[in-house]
């Protein structure tokens, strides 16, 4: 049991680390698309690690099944939601940082003329 506890702790701590880094990325990254990237990728890895860590704590009963269900549910829905959101932002006309720079430049040039 002792070995399982150690593995589980390592997984949990690693998961939390990725979760925190994702949350910081949500603030630090320059434009929306990079922020989506930070949030969604770390969301997935944090969910994988934390739920795996908790799985080792169960005694293989109904709770294990529920955790596995949550695991697959998050694995499917979380990336889908991020993808759909990014796609919707793209269609809504949100520009990435590089594009905004070029369009700003062209705008200022037009103003000067």
């Amino acid at each position, binding site marked *: 049991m002792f070995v399982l506890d150690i593995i589980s702790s390592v997984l949990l701590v690693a998961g939390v680390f990725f979760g925190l880094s994702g949350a910081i990325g949500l603030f630090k990254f320059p434009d929306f698309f990079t922020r989506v990237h930070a949030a969604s990728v770390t969301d997935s890895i944090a969910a994988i690690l934390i739920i795996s860590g908790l799985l080792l704590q169960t005694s293989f009963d109904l709770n294990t099944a529920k955790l596995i269900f949550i695991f697959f*549910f998050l694995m*499917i*829905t979380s990336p*889908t939601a991020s*993808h*759909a959101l990014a*796609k*919707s932002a793209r*269609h809504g006309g949100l520009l990435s940082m590089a594009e905004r720079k070029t369009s700003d430049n062209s705008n200022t040039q037009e103003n000067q003329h």
Partner: protein
Amino acid sequence: MAVLIDLVLLAMLAITALRVIFLKDLFAVVMLFGIYSFLSALIFVSLDAVDVAFTEASVGAGISTVLMLGTLALTGRTEKENKHSSLLPFLVVVVTGAALVYGTLDMPPFGHPDNPVHEHVAPRYIEQSPKEVGLPNMVTSVLASYRGFDTLGETVVVFAAAIGVMSLLGIRRRSEDETPESGLKEHQVLRVVAKLLIPFVVLFALYVQFHGDFGPGGGFQAGVIAAAAFILYALVYGLPLAFQVIGPKFLQLLAPFGVLLYASVGLYSMFKGGLFLDYNTLASDPVAGQHYGIIIIELGVGITVFAVMLSIFYAFASQAERSNVQ
């Protein structure tokens, strides 16, 4: 540890509520309200009210948010600048709040086992209900058996709300010549994933419905989750397709059916010689009778809540689609 979690979550809740005041973008208000519901459900978990948390997460965060978004699609997104002075409301609120805070000082301290609430009725439920009703989940025992009549009333209220919404908005079925609305056509990934998920959601709803006697769950929650599955379908594939799966006419039959199923259990127990909703008479063994009664009335509640929530959603969504066409 439990105290710390409680402190942090309540502080986050207060911040969210405070932020709502100053936002002018109503879409952001609704988003924050979704977070607010999620947070309050978390607090219910940390205060041991798992059944309540279950209900708040599915009903408060899910259905309310979807309905509010539907309303915003019809009424516009931004709040106009308020020209009234906000000083008088602020003063009223501060005075009332100060009076209430003064009042709380006479409340019994939080979490003390000798508080007056725990002296009366509750000990009986906690000690006797596992023997009398035979269910591990005391909330279900009290909800469906001891306070069964009250729950019947609540179910009727939910049904009445559906009648209210129907008479105010109505469900508009589009005529044949118009091209059918196709939902989120652009999002191919979403369409595939939704198709994959919906069977599992319905399965989970059935699990919640029939496992409610032993863990958190029951008719109210199961009805909402089942409705959420069909709401997901309608959101992704469009309303006309959802109408083909489960039509509004059918829902209008389903909603009263649940209430009548509930009430008929009561009448049947009277017929068997007991009082109204006295499940002990339903079978030769009183505890088995309680089991039968609770399973049937929870099913009635589940059916009514499912039909009501889905038809309310249909009413809002059909209004939104109509305004979109115009």
